[in-house]
C-alpha cells in the first residue's frame, strides 16, 4: 500500500510542479466552449434576399411589408430589388445574395380568387444553417399571410401546445457537458497517455521495476494518480464553464455531490480506457498520433454535438460502448435538467464498471519486466 502511495505521491508532485499539464488540459476545452458556444449559438442575421416582383399588386405589397418588418426587427435578412428572376437565381448560385423570393404575375388576383396562390423561394441549400433559417422565416411570413383577417370564434384546426420543461438552453450551456468531458479526456490523454509513455521511454519506469513494488501496486498507483488528475481537471472546468455559461445550479450542494460522483467515475473510466490502450505501447509518438483519432472516435459519436437518435446503426453501436456518451448524458442531466441521482444512476454504473473492467483487462497485460 505504501508503495502504491509513493507512486501516487510522485505523480502528483510532478503534476503540481509543472502546471503546464493542468493549463493545457483546460485551455482547449475552454476555448472551444467560448468560440463554439458563441459561433454556433446565435441566430442568423444580416443575410440578403432578392425580391423579384412580377405582380406589383396589393398582396405583393403585403409580402414586401412583412419583409421590411423582418429587416427592422429580427434582422434575419434585408431585401434587394431584382427585376429578372434568372439574374436573381444566378446571384444566389454565385453567393452574391442568400436567397430570392419570386412573386409571380397574377399573384394578388389568385389570392383574392382563392386560386392556389404561390410565392417562389430560391435558396442556397449547400449551407443548411442559413437556408434553414431563411426558410423558417419565410414560412412564418406565409403562415401569417394565409391566416384569415377575422379569426373564427371557435377554432377548428388542431393546435399543438408546447410545454418547455427547462429554461432556455443556449448553445454554450448545451456545449458545456461535452466540454467538461473533453477536458477530462485531454487530462487523461496527456497525464495518463503521453507522460506515461514518456516516462517509460526515459527510463523512469525501469527505476520502478527494479524495486520490490508489485504489478498491482504499480498499475493501481499510476491509475489512481491519473484519475486524481482527471478529477481535478473535471472540477476546474465544471466550475469555470458553469460560471461562463451562466449556470448557477452548481452552487446547490446536492448538485455538487452529483457532479463530483460523475466526475470521479468518469475519471476512472477514461483512465482505465487509456491505460488499456497504452499498456503495451513503448513509442512516445503513439499516444500523440492516437490523440486526434481517439478524440474523433469517442467525442462525436457520444451525442455531444448531434443527437444519437439521428445516427446510423453502426455509429449508434459505437455510442453504446463509448464512455463519453454516459459522461455527457450525465452532465446534461445534472447541469441542464437538474435530474438528480435518479437521472444519472445508469451513467454512474456504466462508467464505474467500464473503468474497473478496463483496468482488470489491462493489469495482466502490464509487463512487470522490460
Amino acid at each position: 500500500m505504501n508503495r502504491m502511495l509513493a507512486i501516487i505521491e510522485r505523480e502528483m508532485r510532478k503534476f503540481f510542479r509543472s502546471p503546464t499539464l493542468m493549463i493545457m488540459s483546460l485551455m482547449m476545452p475552454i476555448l472551444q466552449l467560448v468560440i463554439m458556444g458563441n459561433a454556433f449559438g446565435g441566430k442568423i442575421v444580416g443575410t440578403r434576399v432578392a425580391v423579384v416582383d412580377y405582380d406589383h399588386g396589393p398582396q405583393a405589397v403585403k409580402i414586401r411589408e412583412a419583409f421590411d418588418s423582418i429587416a427592422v426587427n429580427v434582422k434575419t435578412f434585408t431585401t434587394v430589388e431584382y427585376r429578372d428572376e434568372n439574374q436573381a437565381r444566378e446571384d444566389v448560385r454565385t453567393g452574391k445574395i442568400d436567397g430570392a423570393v419570386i412573386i409571380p404575375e397574377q399573384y394578388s388576383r389568385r389570392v383574392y380568387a382563392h386560386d392556389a396562390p404561390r410565392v417562389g423561394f430560391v435558396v442556397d441549400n449547400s449551407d443548411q444553417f442559413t437556408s434553414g433559417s431563411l426558410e423558417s422565416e419565410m414560412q412564418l411570413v406565409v403562415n401569417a399571410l394565409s391566416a384569415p383577417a377575422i379569426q373564427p370564434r371557435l377554432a377548428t384546426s388542431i393546435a399543438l401546445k408546447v410545454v418547455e420543461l427547462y429554461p432556455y438552453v443556449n448553445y454554450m450551456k448545451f456545449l458545456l457537458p461535452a466540454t467538461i468531458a473533453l477536458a477530462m479526456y485531454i487530462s487523461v490523454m496527456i497525464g495518463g497517455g503521453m507522460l506515461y509513455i514518456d516516462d517509460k521511454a526515459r527510463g523512469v519506469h525501469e527505476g520502478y521495476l527494479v524495486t520490490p513494488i508489485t504489478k498491482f501496486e504499480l498499475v493501481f498507483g499510476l491509475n489512481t494518480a491519473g484519475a486524481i488528475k482527471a478529477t481535478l481537471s473535471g472540477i476546474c472546468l465544471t466550475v469555470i464553464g458553469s460560471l461562463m455559461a451562466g449556470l448557477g445550479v452548481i452552487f446547490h450542494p446536492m448538485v455538487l455531490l452529483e457532479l463530483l460522483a460523475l466526475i470521479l467515475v468518469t475519471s476512472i473510466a477514461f483512465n482505465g480506457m487509456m491505460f488499456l490502450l497504452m499498456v503495451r505501447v513503448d513509442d512516445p509518438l503513439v499516444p500523440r498520433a492516437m490523440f486526434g483519432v481517439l478524440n474523433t472516435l469517442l467525442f462525436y459519436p457520444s451525442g455531444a454535438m448531434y443527437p444519437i437518435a439521428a445516427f446510423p446503426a453502426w455509429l449508434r453501436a459505437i455510442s453504446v460502448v463509448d464512455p463519453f456518451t454516459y459522461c455527457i448524458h450525465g452532465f446534461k442531466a445534472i447541469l441542464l435538467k437538474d435530474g438528480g441521482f435518479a437521472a444519472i444512476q445508469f451513467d454512474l454504473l456504466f462508467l464505474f464498471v467500464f473503468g474497473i473492467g478496463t483496468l482488470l483487462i489491462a493489469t495482466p497485460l502490464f509487463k512487470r519486466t522490460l
Partner: protein
Amino acid sequence: MTAVANNLDQNAKPPTAAIAVEHIVKRYGDFEAVKDVNFSVAEGEIFGLLGPNGAGKSTLIRMMTTLIPITGGKAIIAGHDVDKDPDAVRRMIGVIPQALTSDPDLTVEENLNIYAKLYSVPRAQREKSVNEVLEAVDLSKWRGAQVKTLSGGMRRRVEIARGLVHNPRIFFLDEPTTGLDPVSRIAVWEMLDKLRATRNLTMLLTTHYMEEADKLCDRIAIVDHGTLVALGTPQQLKQNVPGANVVEVHFERETPEWQGRLEKLDGVTSVQAESAGFYRILTSSGSKTTMQLVELASQLGETVTSLSVQNTTLDDVFVHYTGRQLRDEQVKPAAFTMPPRPGAQP
C-alpha cells in the same frame, strides 16, 4: 571461453558468492543475445563486465536485476534465484540502469524519499538513510534542487544515491559513467571506491571504458557477441596477452614490406597494420624493438614520423581476445605525444 577464464573462475563458486550466474542464456526469437555465460562474484568484490556496445553486457545485467526474463540457465543473487524469487532479489540489490531514472521535475530529496518508500524503508529510518546517502555522494547541499537543474555528473550521483537508499548488499551499475566528462567520471570512480570501503558493497558494473575497468574492478569479464571470452583480474588478463609492451609507429611512406620486416624484429609477437603506414606492434621488449626499428628505418632511408612505447593495457587485452578495438574509449595517454593517426576516423 579462454584458458584464463577456465583457470580463474567458472563453475568453482567462491565460498561466499554474492552473485552466481550459471549457464545463463537470453534469446530473442532466433537471436541469442547471451550464450551460456558462467561467472560468480564474491562478496565485497567489484566485478566488471567489459565489452563493446551490443556485446550483451546490459542484457546480462538486466537478467540479473529481474528486468528481463532469463531464457535458460540461472542467476543466484544474494542466495536467491532471480527466476523463482525476484522480489527477494529486488530487496537485496540496488540498480543503476543506463537511463537516468530519477524524476527531473522532483528535487533530489523527493526522489530519494519516493524510492525509500518503494523499497519499504521504515518511516523512522527514512530520513537518516536519505541523509546518509546524500552525504556519501556529496549532494547534501543540493537536496532541495530539482534534478533537472543539476549537471550530468551530479545527476549520475543522484542515481547512485537512489540505488543505495535502501542499503542494498549488491550494487549493479550499467555503464555508470557513460556520457560524463573526464572530471565527473573520476569523481564517480572515487565515490564508488569509497562506497565499497564504507558500505562493504558487492558491485557489478558494465563499462566500455578500459580505464574504468582497470581502475575500479577487482576482476573483469570480457563479453563479446554474448559470450564470455575472458575473465580474471586486470593484471592476469594483461599477463595473458603475448608481449609486455606495445610499440606504435608511423612511417612517412607506406610500403607493403613493412609488415614482414617488423615481424622479424627481436621480441615481436604480433604486428597489426592499423592504417596507411601505421603499425601496432606487441613485443616482449619495448626498448629493444624500438632501437632495432629505428636502425632499420635509418638503413632503408625511411622516415619515422611518430613512435610510442606503452605497457600492455586492457585495450590490448580486448583486441587480443576479440580481435577488434573499442570505439568508445578515450585516447590513452602515450609515452610520446602522438599525432593524429593518418586515415583514422575522428
